[in-house]
């Protein structure tokens, strides 16, 4: 047995502050197990709120919010490092000089800092961000891990038709994490040789430890950013169809975004404004309350990795209607723990809603099985364990 260095520290790139809740959950779980987690973001909080305990924030040199005097500081630091590691830095500088258009001081310094960082694993959370860190290709691909997530991955595939940069991006890192098996399959196809290093890790959600009693099967709930990609208008159209059949059901929309005006107009135009409630963006506990108080959660997206909100609803024991997008068919077995409907079809969603209303017993059993599925596959402990295994595996491969 080789002496494999154990993973001790993790550097995360491409996270905005404040981070998405599912990312934060993971970092906190890793930090709780004694790993040193450092995040590099455009903005870093000066004081650490308790939610980020154990997670270290650093400011990105590339971001414009860094003042000039700090850039000067980085310059001095870079010179010092150049004295200590002349050969490595020489290779790096040589690589930068080869491409005259990348002579950007901030970018150069940022890359330099990444190049020399001491962390065992460097994790880029969004695949599309790989393009920003071109120098990683030559320097530290041994420790590089990239996540393939919903929209980013599909947009990347779109670029794949136009140029080869997507393929080269995907071939570069040592380890690839995919949020669902569907994406992992595509990534494996592209990476051809190394089949084993694309790993699917489903995200985990915390256990609410309660089972709501669904009293009102006529109330539905949609949670998510209000953007075109989530296609919430379909939900409104479906609601219209169901209401026209004589069922007095209501819809709660939790979330905010660019499509707010569109949805408000649609509710007015379809004449269901009294049945739709817009709650705006809420914090996670209030969102959970809304999900728990509704009879059924609807996901109308056209792109998705695995929607965390669906997992949360399953954990709560709420029935789910979801479109068959991205990795949702790996989570939901239609009729067993939720209903899957084809994408971009209001009629299909309406039919599913009707099914939920007319067969409350079946809805209840689906909610129960959803809870079971969550306990088996999507707990936060399970996901943390597989993350650690994944990181260790990457280090092992490199060694």
């Amino acid at each position, binding site marked *: 047995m080789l002496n494999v260095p154990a993973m001790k520290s993790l550097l995360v790139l491409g996270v905005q502050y404040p981070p998405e809740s599912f990312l934060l959950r993971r970092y906190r779980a890793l930090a709780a197990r004694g790993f040193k987690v450092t995040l590099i973001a455009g903005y870093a909080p000066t004081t650490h709120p308790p939610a980020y305990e154990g997670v270290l924030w650093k400011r990105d040199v590339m971001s414009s919010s860094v003042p000039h005097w700090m850039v000067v500081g980085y310059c001095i630091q870079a010179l010092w490092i150049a004295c200590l590691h002349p050969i490595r830095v020489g290779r790096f500088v040589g690589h930068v000089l080869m491409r005259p258009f990348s002579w950007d001081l901030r970018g150069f310094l940022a890359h330099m800092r990444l190049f020399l960082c001491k962390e065992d694993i460097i994790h880029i959370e969004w695949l599309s961000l790989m393009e920003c860190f071109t120098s990683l290709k030559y320097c530290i691909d041994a420790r590089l891990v990239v996540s393939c997530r919903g929209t980013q991955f599909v*947009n990347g595939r*779109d670029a794949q038709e136009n140029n080869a940069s997507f393929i080269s991006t995907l071939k570069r890192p040592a380890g690839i994490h995919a949020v669902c098996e569907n994406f992992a399959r595509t990534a494996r196809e592209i990476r051809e040789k190394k089949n084993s290093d694309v790993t699917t890790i489903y995200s985990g959600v915390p256990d609410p430890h309660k089972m709501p009693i669904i009293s009102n099967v006529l109330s539905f709930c949609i949670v998510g950013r209000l953007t075109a990609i989530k296609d919430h208008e379909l939900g409104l159209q479906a609601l219209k169809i169901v209401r026209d059949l004589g069922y007095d059901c209501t819809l709660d929309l939790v979330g905010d975004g660019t499509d707010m005006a569109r949805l408000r*107009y649609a509710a007015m135009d379809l004449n269901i404004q009294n049945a739709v409630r817009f709650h705006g963006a809420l914090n996670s506990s209030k969102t959970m309350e809304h999900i728990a108080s509704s009879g059924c959660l609807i996901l109308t997206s*056209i792109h998705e990795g695995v929607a965390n909100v669906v997992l949360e609803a399953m954990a709560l024991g709420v029935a789910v209607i979801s479109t068959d997008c991205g990795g949702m068919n790996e989570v939901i077995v239609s009729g067993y723990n939720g209903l899957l409907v084809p994408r971009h079809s209001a009629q299909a969603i309406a039919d599913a809603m009707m099914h939920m209303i007319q067969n409350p017993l079946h809805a209840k059993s689906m909610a129960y099985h959803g809870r079971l599925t969550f306990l088996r596959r999507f707990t936060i402990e399970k996901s943390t364990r597989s993350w650690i295994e994944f990181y260790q595996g990457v280090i092992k491969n490199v060694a």
Partner: protein
Amino acid sequence: MWREHARIVLMVGRFPTISETFIINKFVGLLQRGFDVHMVCNQYKKSLAHSYYPNTLIGTKHRIHVWNPFTWRGLWMWKPKILINLFVSCLAAWAQQGTPLRFSQNIRRYVWQTWRRHAMASLGPALVHFEFGTLAQENITSLRDTSWKNAVSFRGYDIEYVGLDDPHFYNQVWEYADAFHVLGADLKRRADKRGLPLDAAVFQIPPGINFSEYEAPFKIHKNEVIQLTTVARLDWKKGIEYAIEAVALLKNRGFKVMYQVIGEGSYREYLKWVIDFYDVHDCVILCGSKNKVEVKKYLFETDIFIMASVSEGFCNAVLEAQASGLPVVCSDAAGLPENVAHNETGYVVPRRSAKAIADAVETLICEPHTRERMGGNGQTRVKENFSLEKQIDAFESMYRTLLEESSSRQTNVEVMPAPIIHARVS
């Protein structure tokens, strides 16, 4: 002549924007009639003005005022009087609203309002026309505390999206404006719903286009592939996804069609996905935004014009398509049924329905002579009802009525002879 002595100020937000041709048409049209017209805006982009509207704005530099209190140019227009006024109105607002927090949120607005009112007074207008209802709402003191006449235009944007949470959002505008202008009967109805008083002087003036620019004899193209075109921003309001779905239906029915969308916007990614979803890569093109001359070229090669809007004011693009002799398939959103005469110059179909669009287009593809007839009808109808001349005439009479009447409120509603509105397809 009264025209030269009564100074009219048109108030717009940003100027120019590519989708607001009507403002520039009106400005130039009124100038040509000998009016003393001035235009006031917050932002002005000279380069854009020249690329969008070449040769139209020559010699009008002194009539376009870019007013912003926070720029160097705007700085010298500050006067002690304005500061005193601002102070007083701030105090009043504070007393009215109670909490300093909300007051501090609104202070920027008070500065704009007060400053702009004084700047406007320095022009000495007889009449100020706010081209958007929201502008009037933002500058309510210019309506309330001044002696000149005020007219306010209400367009689709003002009525349908702004201030929906607050039922009293436009109350002050309803109260203090002297006259209102709406584009069509449908917008009037919607404005009524939002509280437009019954006794208000409402002028219903549809937009006009310069017909001679678009006039082209209709011809049936001998191509095998039918060209469908939409000229619109890539935006949710324009419902382009329904048109793409309709194209997919037509493709499945065995028709050879080519659908091009001229315009740019935030929904490009989404529409690309929709094209991918229905697998119509080979017959849908998103062309990006084009200038006026290029759009004319595209229209000349088109067979059928489609406008599948979900929400619409009146839509000048459809007018221009009709003027260039194209049959139109459009949805029944807001002003479109007034714009297109059903069965006469095109088909008006229910909105959010791809199947209805596909059926209407199919009919037109199968009957080239209907296309020819509708194209011809459209040209005559636009020429008769929606010419620029006619629009300017209507504005002239509106301004004359406003400036000559003695009382501030007029009781009767004046309506320009409206085109016949046909019932929509069931």
